[in-house]
């Protein structure tokens, strides 16, 4: 069957859902940075998107060049049905696994680990 989504890929797809029509390198990067607290490189975004695109999870479209980009064009990404399904599956799995564990996690992070 289809490969599972990695954590980074999940972050990317969530960003696409959030950003809708305005998802391209800069907005995706800033979205992930501000919400997830992770600084990712533009190169990594495009590489990962290419991989997602090859699996049919996202599509891309090239936009117009703007002067603020030194005349360079933007590459917009849009999540596809297959991508949304994969994301749901991954999120559901994670959600299912995490169910009810919040208090326990809080306990574990609060105290020092006993061994190792």
């Amino acid at each position: 069957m289809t490969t599972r989504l990695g954590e980074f890929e999940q972050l990317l797809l969530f960003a696409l859902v959030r950003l809708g029509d305005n998802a391209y390198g800069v907005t995706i990067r800033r979205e992930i940075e501000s919400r997830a607290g992770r600084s990712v490189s533009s190169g990594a975004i495009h590489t990962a998107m290419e991989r997602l695109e090859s699996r049919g999870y996202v599509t891309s479209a090239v936009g117009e060049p703007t002067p603020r980009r030194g005349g360079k064009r933007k590459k917009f990404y849009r999540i596809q049905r297959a991508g949304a399904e994969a994301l749901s599956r991954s999120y559901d799995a994670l959600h299912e696994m995490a169910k009810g564990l919040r208090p326990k996690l809080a306990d574990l992070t609060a105290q020092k680990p006993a061994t190792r």
Partner: protein
Amino acid sequence: MSDNPSPLIGRLLLRLALPRQDREFIIGDIDEEFAEHILPNRGWLAARIWYWSHVFRSVGNRTLRLPRSPRMLRPRGDRFMTTTWMDIRHSLRGLAKNPGFTLIALLTLALGIGANTAIFSVVYAVLLRPLPFGDAERLVRVFETRPDRGWEGVSLSRPNFRDYRAQNRTLEDMGAMLGTDMNMTGSGYPERVRGALVSAGFFRVLRVDPIVGRTFLREEDEPGNETRVALLNYEFWRTRFSGEPAIAGTTLTLDDENYTVVGVLPPGEPWLDGAQVFIPMVRNPAANRGNFILGTIARLKPGVSIAAAAADLEAVAERLSQQYPELQTQGRIGIRMDPASDWVASDSVRRALWVLLGAVGFLLLIACVNLANLLLARATARQRETAVRAALGASRGRISQQLLAEALTLGVLGSGVGLFLAFGAIRLVRSLDPGGIPRLADVSLNGWVLVFTLAVGLLSGVIAGLVPAFQVPYAGLLSALREGDRGATGSRIQQRLRSWLVGLEVALSLILLVGAGLLIRSFGELSRVDRGFRTENRLFFSVTLPPTYDEGTRASELINQFIARIEAIPLVVNAAAVHIPPLSQGSTGMGIVSAERAAEMAESVPWASWRLITDDYFRTLGIPLLKGRTFTAADIVGEPWQVVISDRLANLLWPDQDPVGRQALLWAGQDDLPAEVIGVVGDMRERGLEDDPTLAVYIPYGGASWHPNFVVYAAGDPLALVPTLRPMLAELDPNLPITNIRSFDDMVSASVADRRFNMMLLTVFAGLALVLALAGIYGVQSYLVTRRTSEIGIRVALGASGGSVIRHIVAQGMIPTVMGIGIGALGAFGVSRFLASLLFGIAATDIVTYVGVATLLGLAGLVSCYVPARRAMKVDPVIALREE
């Protein structure tokens, strides 16, 4: 591009390293975010750090599409030094396994490093090495300036020196030195020694301690002091007196007077090597204020700036010019002070050395680019090895690190080989010594130079290693594994990168070649310049007369007798004497005006150099007599005053009139001696080929007693006369030495020796650059052609003619060369203005040079492209096809 605020180099790096399909978007993303969000919010420095971190992360992310390696496969105890050491050993093994590559890479690098080390060691010795004086930063050399006469640095007259020393408030002390040649007799044959008169405190101003005995005492330059003491220069003491430690107390006979040696000075320059024997300059209250002869130094009081000290002396000068009308200052007397750091090298030497250092810098860059290209080709060939290592879990960082380590190892090894080359080059440079570059004999490899060399080697390694380190792991891992060794084709990006590097090499070498071309053209112009006198078959030599010849006409009688004897030699056409030879830096000058326009000209008195000459001087040097007559052997200076003047001076004093028979005032403003102009002669470039012809006033030698310099015009090789001259002079006076014997041609070529030295070195560097660039073009072209062997086979099999295929290949191969020439021409245009001061007769934008160099480089590039193409055509198409 100018309104894009992101760092140019970073963007270039991205352009080079990113794969084509995403390049535009990634660069655009980073630029946009940088300009819109980061720069406005984080400030300049933080924004730049952000930008660079994203450059490196984007490049790193894109260069290798591999999963992160499992932790267990990374080296345990992942200490930086452990991996570094592993990398070095791995590099050394790799280099040893591939001796051909290693040899070429090392040689390329060593050429660049060696040239840099050699020139840097010259720069260090000449410009950077500290002076041998205590607290040298407070030492200055003092000149007067006369803006009204266009003099930018005049030596001081003896009375002015004394007054400045007595009246200043900002100087700790001043010292003065006056060079004078003396005859040393009493120990074997007579010998001319370079002597200097110095004020008694001179060496105390410099803070120099003698290595034997003592320096002069305060009272030893006072009038009436008859002690007659002397100090020896280190070199003279060592060579002439075998370094005898008990030299103090010995007696020397100089110009027929006895002097007691009191000490020996340490080696060092400047000043300490300015003479072989130093004697105290006894103060002469009657000395002429218009006689600018003293080289003067001063030590500033602590905390006093040069500007403050100069202003202080200018105030003294102001008082002096009011007090002494003979100073005749229409304008003000200014003071110029050169800090000790400027003493050793003149401005022109300084500039020339920086230009040379720049040139070898370019050469090193070319070598680095070449090496980068070699490393890239090697990495392509080792793609499979890289792929296997990656598949086994090496991270991309580790692989890049390893590649960089290899380049750095090459850099260090290259430094070693480069040192050997530099050692040879330094010996060569020393043997080429043009005479005008101070301290050249002391140039050597020392600690600073070694540090410099190693630094240059490491830097070269980094520059050459960065490109492949970023680039290599990008090539598709799977295809590399699948295709095995046959897959060593290199990606499209790598091909383009290599073409770019070749273009860069061509551009850099064009810049160097243009520089060399401009100097060569200048030299050509200089040797074609009309110097106004002839040098072929002319012999030059000097004779020093001791003070016993000062009275009456004794000197000129001896000179005339000697000339008569010389002219009696069958080989000799003419012979003459002059008190200051052409092309020498020495000069004697006077103000001169026409008597009838004296008042009118008082505002701007022409300043002419004057020369004592014997009657045959013009004929001997081939200077044409334009009007009137020249002197006879019977003419005596000042009885009556008669002069011959040069053409330009005549036009200045009597425009559009016949100057012969008119009255001029000599030493205008000082003595105002009326003199009759009896003739006009052609102009000559006396001060050197690069200067304009001098305004000249000629005065008969008769009755004067200056040390004469002789010029002999022979019908054959003038040096053949030398053996006959000494005995001939000895018959007239056995105590007179003949020195400075040279052919006049040698004097001319010595006067342009600095220029020739610069030209030769720059030409050598440009030649090396050309060779490296051609090797680069050739290497890339051969590689591409080999790769396309099967394609060529198909083309030929399908009926393409050999010529058309070759044309196609060559045309493609020439693209980077042509681009490089274009870019290089623009670069040269920008850089060559730094050369402007070294040029003569042509502009820094000289079109002939540019076109010539571009043609040369283009043709050489064509050959480098043609040869591999031609070789590929020789392959049998059947074999070529089967290879596929």
